[in-house]
């Protein structure tokens, strides 16, 4: 692999790992269910960028793009279902704090 491609890969990899760290931090520390969903979005975007990068480096951009298009469709439905569950959590608890979702124990 040519050296400037290798350097490109290294730069991209650093930033993708930073995005993963931001996403995980957001999910772990957040006290608001909708912000947790935003953290999930950031994680999926990082994975999307990794797939496109992999496709670019090995020359199969067509395959990578079709994977990403399918992934975006899954992401939409995931957000819709997550939004629905958040909506009902709000209806039961009057609050969208994940710390309140701790009735089941043991």
């Amino acid at each position, binding site marked *: 692999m040519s050296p400037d491609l290798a350097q490109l890969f290294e730069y991209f990899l650093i930033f993708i790992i930073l995005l*993963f760290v931001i996403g995980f931090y957001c*999910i772990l520390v957040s006290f608001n*269910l909708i912000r*947790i969903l935003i953290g*999930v979005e950031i*994680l*999926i975007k*990082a*994975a999307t960028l*990794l*797939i496109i*990068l*992999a*496709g670019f*480096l*090995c*020359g*199969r951009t067509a*395959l*990578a793009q079709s*994977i990403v298009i*399918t*992934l975006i469709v*899954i992401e939409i*439905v*995931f957000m819709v*279902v*997550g939004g*629905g*569950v*958040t909506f*009902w*959590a709000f209806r*039961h*608890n009057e609050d969208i704090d*994940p710390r309140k*979702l*701790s*009735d*089941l124990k*043991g």
Partner: protein
Amino acid sequence: MPSALILAPFLSLIILNLFPKEIMRKIAFGWVACLLLLQILLIVLYPGILFGAAGDPIGSFFAFELFIDALSKLLLLSIAIVVLASLTVAQYAIKDQTQRFNFTNLILIILIGMNATVIVTDLFSLYLFIEITSLSSFILISILKDKPAIEGAFKYLMLSVIASVFMLTSIAIFLLVSGSTSFAAVSDSFKNPANAFLVQIAAGLFLCALFIKSGVFPFHGWLPDAHSACPTPVSVLLSGIVVKAGGIYVLARLATSVFTFSAAMQNVLMFIGAFSIVFGALAALTQSNFKRMLAYSTVSQVGYMVLALGCFTPLALAGAVFHLFNHAIFKSLLFVNAGAVEKQTGTLDMNRMGGLSSQMPVTSTTSVIASLSAAGVPPLAGFWSKLIIILALWNAGHQTYAGIALVSSILTLAYLLAIQRKVFFGKLEQTLTSIKEAPLAIVLPEILLATITIAVGLSFPFIFNNWILPLKELVH
């Protein structure tokens, strides 16, 4: 023709929703039940139609790349049986007509997802259909929208999305080193020594994702909440088959045909499996909620399958898959019993029950049969699968793990008999004297599942030759 397994439920879904609702609501149950019975009959009696010489006229028109072998056949049979049991229980457990129709539609989507998971040959399509199964199970868990269900669904959602991100990262790395995501290309990429480090990282990430999906020890946090808080037919579905078709089958398929496991990974699998067995059994002993105890029991039994897969000899693989089938049957039976008890007495707290065997004879008999099968008592089916696993471990030289598996069967017997003693035997409580047996919609699947357990156990030599031996060819 394998593509019929995906296209037939898909067409049913479209037809059920295209025509006016009043007619469709009445025939929805019958139609889906016929579809599932057809799947069971074709696999057991005429396997040649579905896979084999007949070829695949529709599939080749569409460029599907599907492949069925002995492993997929056994999984397809378990999927059909458990989904049929869940559908029948739903006729009684979900009262509202509209919700029951939504439930039937979502069951069709889960059926498509799981059928497709066991027959695809491409890593990204595998991920896609696992996601379809997960999405519809989130919706199913929250179908009645009560507070514990929403909480269980949210925890499952969070852990499932982390698993998805791991799987996507793994797929990206495989795309990078091999240029394609099909099983053939991925397994070729393991042979190139220049890529060894990256490929091992990718395989490890995919394994972590599968551990989350299967609910083994470090990542089991969502399992007790999700499986105990959802309505009974959904519990039957989740514990009975989703955990296994989405998690353990994928592990078995990747371990045998796609990934090449290093010795370190096999040790990790065995350690995590053994830990899950013991942890699940000990945690189940302390529960007082019927369904929560059964959910921890699922963690324990899945540990058996992971332990056998880590051992990686042909006999161990056969034992793991046979245990998968048996667990689908007896765990569904136990959850159906729990649902019957919940509907008739209105509670799941075992400390408030007692002596129900005189009031609900069929439920208590089938529950005893399922418990004995789970604990591995001859001549029921569970005995044979546990025997194969323990023998395989002993032969491969892992005597400590075989010992742990043997001792944990005794623990399994302990907590399951605790359920029997608390709920069904003992003195009849005053408040429960007016309980009657559950109606036909619940009793019928109970009898059928118990019959399958007994029949499989008694006819084991015949089944061994036809269904289990072909599995051994998968490991070379």
